[in-house]
């Protein structure tokens, strides 16, 4: 199996870097996925057909933590500080908060390569890019499913899970 075998095809839905954070959060919250469920936890940020970043729950949460809070100062916060800091985010734009560290997979990358990237860079979703164009997205859940199916011995009808020797 390769990246292209487990990725969900890219449907062209993305955030604009100039979008306000409020608008972006609403857009993600009310976005109806292909399976009919509503709300996504993150999206690609694209300028034209070029990926410029990703925005996820983690990025929003990270942005409300002031940069000066280090492990030596983390005990010195006050009740309501998180809300104080969150209220400062109202007028921010997507481009100010998004994760600009662009990590991609290619369609023919091995699943191990994809798993390694997701874990190493602490990502939830990995865009799959072919010739500069996004063709799909691998969610951390997709890879997790591959692994647990193996552990549970459910993959491709095989029964060589953890119970069997080799």
């Amino acid at each position, binding site marked *: 199996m390769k990246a292209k075998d487990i990725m969900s095809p890219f449907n062209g839905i993305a955030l604009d870097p100039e979008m306000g954070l409020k608008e972006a959060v609403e857009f993600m919250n009310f976005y109806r996925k292909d399976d009919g469920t509503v709300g996504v936890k993150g999206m690609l940020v694209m300028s034209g057909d070029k990926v410029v970043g990703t925005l996820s729950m983690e990025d929003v949460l990270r942005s409300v933590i*002031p940069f000066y809070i280090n492990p030596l100062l983390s005990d010195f916060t*006050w009740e309501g500080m998180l809300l104080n800091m969150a209220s400062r985010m109202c007028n921010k734009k997507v481009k100010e908060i998004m994760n600009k560290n662009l990590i991609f997979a290619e369609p023919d990358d091995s699943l191990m390569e994809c798993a390694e990237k997701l874990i190493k860079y602490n990502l939830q979703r990995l865009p799959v890019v072919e010739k500069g164009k996004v063709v799909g997205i691998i969610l951390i859940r997709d890879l997790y499913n591959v692994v647990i199916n193996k552990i549970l011995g459910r993959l491709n009808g095989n029964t060589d899970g953890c119970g069997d020797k080799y």
Partner: protein
Amino acid sequence: MEIQTDVVINIKFWAATAILIFTYIIIISEKINKTIVSIFGASLMIILHLVDQKEAFYFEELGVDWNVIFLLISMMIIINIMKPTGFFEYIAIKSAKFGKGDPIKIMLIFAMVTFVLSAFLDNVTTVLLIAPVSLLIADALEISPIPFLIVEALASNIGGTATLIGDPPNIMIGSKAKLSFVDFLIHLTPVVLITMIIFLFILKFVFKEKLKISDEKKQRILSMDESKAIKDPVLLSKSLFVLGLVLLGFVIHGILHYEPATIALFGAGLLLLLAGIHDPQHIFSEIEWSTIFFFIGLFIIVGGVVKVGLIKLISIKILEITQGNLMATSMLIIWFSAFASAFIDNIPYVATMNPLIINMAAQLWPDEKGVALLHHPELLPLWWSLALGACLGGNGTMIGASANVIVVGIANKAGEKITFLKFLKYGMPTMLLTVIVSSIYIYVRYYLLK
């Protein structure tokens, strides 16, 4: 006054001079990292035989001043071991609570804390420790952190002037002029304390308009428990013990006939041993090697121009201008140094001025040698003028001292812009005030009451 010059102006003279000028111009232009420029310039000096490798590596007059290098490295090691104990955060939170959540009081207390810390630690370390707490306090009180940050940079530069180990120019002057920690305490600390007190009064006056802060916001600070800052009480007591020992060692290093670097190196070695660190690599990797190599390169470059006689030639010219009037020379040095360090790095400046002053002394008193020459009673005010001008001048502009550059960077990260003019509004009056007070001090103490 007629002075004979035996400086031979040949191709080597011009080559060394050109290297010095080009390196300094590139450093000022900030087009290339200053450490890279300094190391490359130094290597050119050696490869072109303007100074031999042996002279550059081993000669006190022409090469690397290892006393400065080991003092800096050792103090960095001690601080790097001490930082994670949370001691500095403890002091800062405790100070903020002592100010009862009142912004002006906290600003003045933070200025004093920064002043004291930077007299013993380097200024950049001090502002890096105090600035994050200031941002936290400003957020808790919902006020702008900018005045705090600027005042702290200014206080750190003033505090650094107070002792031999407070600021690199003083370390360099102390080493080159063979002046002890106590010499600095006797001659510089009093005037620096006076300027700091005046600075605090002016701050109080400038910021007299009381900001209305609700009790609820003050309570945010008062309810912080500073004891939570201490992450490693055992390491903290070991660190404080060693730091105390090092400070005591500095005070008596003259009597014990140890160089300050020996004292600091002993402290670093002892703390590394006591801290029970298995692999000291991470402590060493936090040493600011870039600064250390900047020094190493500069020492070699300056060694080159000393060897070819450029420094001697300039010293003769200065004596011609001032006609050997040392009071005029003192005043010229303090004011020129202040304005020079307001715009350029005071480290290369002092590296060049040190041999210049020694050369002037050699012209003036040809019969004196060694410490007798360096400590000639009429020469001493020149050293103090250089120290005061070079250190206090750093306050003049946003680029005058590393501490200033650091707070501007931190403010920027916090989304608050400190412009060149904004810093100048605080910095230049502070520089002028402190240098005027220092000039009066030099005049009264060393010339009027002589």
